[in-house]
């Protein structure tokens, strides 16, 4: 197992490097540069201002030199300096990462747990009213644009009803500590996490339901019935465990990708996370920040792929790991 994980980690480093180079070239292909954007924000600037900025950022160097400098740094986990935010990228990401991990983590766990439960409930009584309602809801969530849900949710729960804060990470200036702070953050988390989670919940629900129905047609389920096991035990012990295998694969794929979805959610809910950081950095051509976020999120994807494989092995004894 250790050998497997080490092997995969070595491989991951190479993939990460490839991604770095690819992203580097991609981002530098975009028109404009951070100096121009910053000068633009200042409303006025002269040639010297731009040249000074570019020299300061190292943007006056040939592209391959910039790439080489970046790679050299990245290998030593130095993600460079944010031009616009004027601080080290690693620090910037470090500041924002916890918020994103909290948001996506809660959304992910919630959607996975609720999605699986709903999927099991729906599949237990295929074709019943309950199944129809759950399936229809899931389909609706699945078909609704995420940002639209976000807007509507803010409108209803924050503006009209005033139950929940519509944006932000915590009540600014309230100075909560301890439990009060936790509760405060939790309150702020409700809307963004459920918005983000809704879509994924729909996916897991549909997947679980389909998978449950498929597994329930397999022979060993008939064996279980022939043993005289009750429906509940069969569902839980025999069908669910087998049906979860594809769900695990999917969840693993999506756990890494969930950053992508967080861009919209974080923007609408002013959540100070990494998705928003990335979106702003793209608009500002803050190269190092974009690369840094991509770097981290690619690392996340690879990490989750690894975790998925390990979980898979634990759940399914038939699988042997290969690097």
């Amino acid at each position, binding site marked *: 197992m250790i050998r497997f994980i080490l092997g995969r980690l070595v491989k991951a480093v190479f993939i990460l490097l490839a991604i770095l180079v690819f992203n580097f070239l991609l981002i530098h292909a*975009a*028109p*404009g*540069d*951070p100096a*121009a*954007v*910053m*000068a*633009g*924000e*200042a*409303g*006025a*600037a*002269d*040639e*010297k*201002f*731009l040249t*000074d900025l570019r020299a*300061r950022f190292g943007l006056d160097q040939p592209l391959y030199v910039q790439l080489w400098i970046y790679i050299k740094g990245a290998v030593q986990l130095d993600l460079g300096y944010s031009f*616009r*935010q*004027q*601080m080290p990228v690693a620090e*910037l990401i470090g*500041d*924002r990462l916890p*918020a994103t991990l909290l948001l996506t983590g809660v959304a992910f766990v919630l959607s996975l747990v609720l999605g699986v439960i709903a999927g099991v409930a729906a599949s237990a009584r295929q074709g019943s009213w309950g199944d129809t309602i759950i399936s229809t809801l899931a389909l609706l969530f699945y078909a609704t644009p995420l940002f639209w849900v976000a*807007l509507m949710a*803010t409108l209803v729960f*924050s*503006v009209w009803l*005033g139950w929940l*804060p*519509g*944006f*932000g*990470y*915590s009540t*600014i*200036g309230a100075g909560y500590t301890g439990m009060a702070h936790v509760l405060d953050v939790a309150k702020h988390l409700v809307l963004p996490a459920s918005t983000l989670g809704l879509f994924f919940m729909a996916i897991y629900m549909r997947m679980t339901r389909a998978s449950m129905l498929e597994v329930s047609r397999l022979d060993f389920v008939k064996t279980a019935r022939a043993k005289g096991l009750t429906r509940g035990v069969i569902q839980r012990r025999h069908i669910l465990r087998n049906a979860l295998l594809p769900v695990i694969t999917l969840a693993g794929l999506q756990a890494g990708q969930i950053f992508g979805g967080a861009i919209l959610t974080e*923007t*609408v*809910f*002013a959540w*100070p*996370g990494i998705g*928003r*950081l990335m979106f*702003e950095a793209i*608009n*500002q*051509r803050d190269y190092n920040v974009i690369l840094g976020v991509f770097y981290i999120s690619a690392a996340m994807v690879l990490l989750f792929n690894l975790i998925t494989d390990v979980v898979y092995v634990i759940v399914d004894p038939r699988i042997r790991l290969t690097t």
Partner: protein
Amino acid sequence: MLKPINLAAALLALSLASPLAAQDGEPQSGGTLNVVIQPEPPSLMLGLVQNGPTQMVGGDIYESLLRYDFDLKPEGQLAESWEISEDGKTYTFKLRQGVTFHDGTPFTSADVEFSMDKFLRESHSRMRTYMEHVESIETPDEHTVVFNLKQPFGPFIGIFEPGTAPMIPKHIYEGTDFATNEANNTPIGTGPFKFDKWEKGSFIHLVKNEDYYMEGKPYVNEVYYHVIPDAASRAVAYETGKVDVLPGGSVENFDVSRIQAMENTCITDKGWEYFGPLSWMWVNMNNKPLDDVNVRRAIMHAVDRNFAKDALWNGLGKVATGPFTSSTRFWDGDTPDISYDPEKAKALLADSSYNGEKIRILGLPYGETWQRWAEAVKQNLSEIGMDTEIVPSDVAGWNQKISDRDFDLAFTYLYQYGDPALGVSRSYMGSNAAPGSPWNNVANYQNPETDKMFEEAALMANPDDRKAAYKTIQDQIVSDVPNIWLLELGFPTIYRCNIKNPVNTAFGVNDGFRDVWIDTK
């Protein structure tokens, strides 16, 4: 002739000029001010970065020698009094006594010299051009600064505001690399509020400067600047009471009227007099058929600016009369007619060299209002028979395209900084038309006559002479239509009515919340 100005008199003048201040009772101390900031500033070090949000927060931390009322008349800030020699070449400032920086170090004439001569000359592109007029700076004593100019430069008295000439602590920056100095993260100035904390992506927290040199000020204990990236969320933030001040541009114009209707909500479009933001479309005269004045005139008459003002800007602002905004010195409203007249536009177009070419409109990527505006203009032009296409871009792409002159019509808006020599001539001088910059004469307007007049007018010592010269300039430029002037933008500041004095100078919220107090009654 020396013109000493009494501070008390100036304050009195201010309170008379500001009806808001006049009707309110005794200022109260205490309370927290919650303000929206958009976008998140890259840095708070006003000497290095001068974009809008930095100025807004920096204006609380840093101060300059003067400030300016709604009519752009100077008042003392760090300078107690000042005088301008009769030949217009010597400016003498007497500094206020007993002023200290936030770290306790006294503020002296050495700081002024350092800021103006070293720091800003190095890092502030606009200041760099202004300082070219300065021959030398003298500091006869700790509280006196003398600027000797090479020749008279009328606008010079207008540059002493925090966004242009912030006073920077010499003891912290001297001998260091300004751009990478650690202190940039914890800015120190002389202003009414001190920097406390910046949670990136969430908020910036400033606290009252207890040692502020003005008795009893500031009134407010602390200021939170809230970073909320989405315009709709910012509106919600105001509605749910999370923030109390929405500076201009922080909510979409479509939302203004709705928010305005809320209880205890006041709105003002004052506080932009110094900047005088004027919007227009660059016309790329390097491209055919836009080099034809008839085509440009046709476009000018085809664009329905009143519709834009009412539908897009919520009725705020003014329809522009030409290259000057009405708050800029030497503005003249009596310029040739450029009003909306589609019939005339069609006639002009028919007489022109336009042959059905596709005209590319580059919108300004600053939010929905600007996008809608580009769409409306596109529709206006298609109604007089022009074929148009909107070119999509983000901020970086926009800068690039403007710099490369890769457009036909391009939306923009620029500040005028109170004086045509500071904010207008740069966009029309033939010598300032080289590609590579988005802020020079992008349209490539070449008129030696106006060039000459611009140069002369800037150096005239007598305001009346200047006025006459600028009148001719305005008439000439308007008849040439090098740009399609749109609106003098009205950026509304929205705030709770019990917050007093949020806007009381020509810089509005950018001038610090020195005089703000919260009425709890």
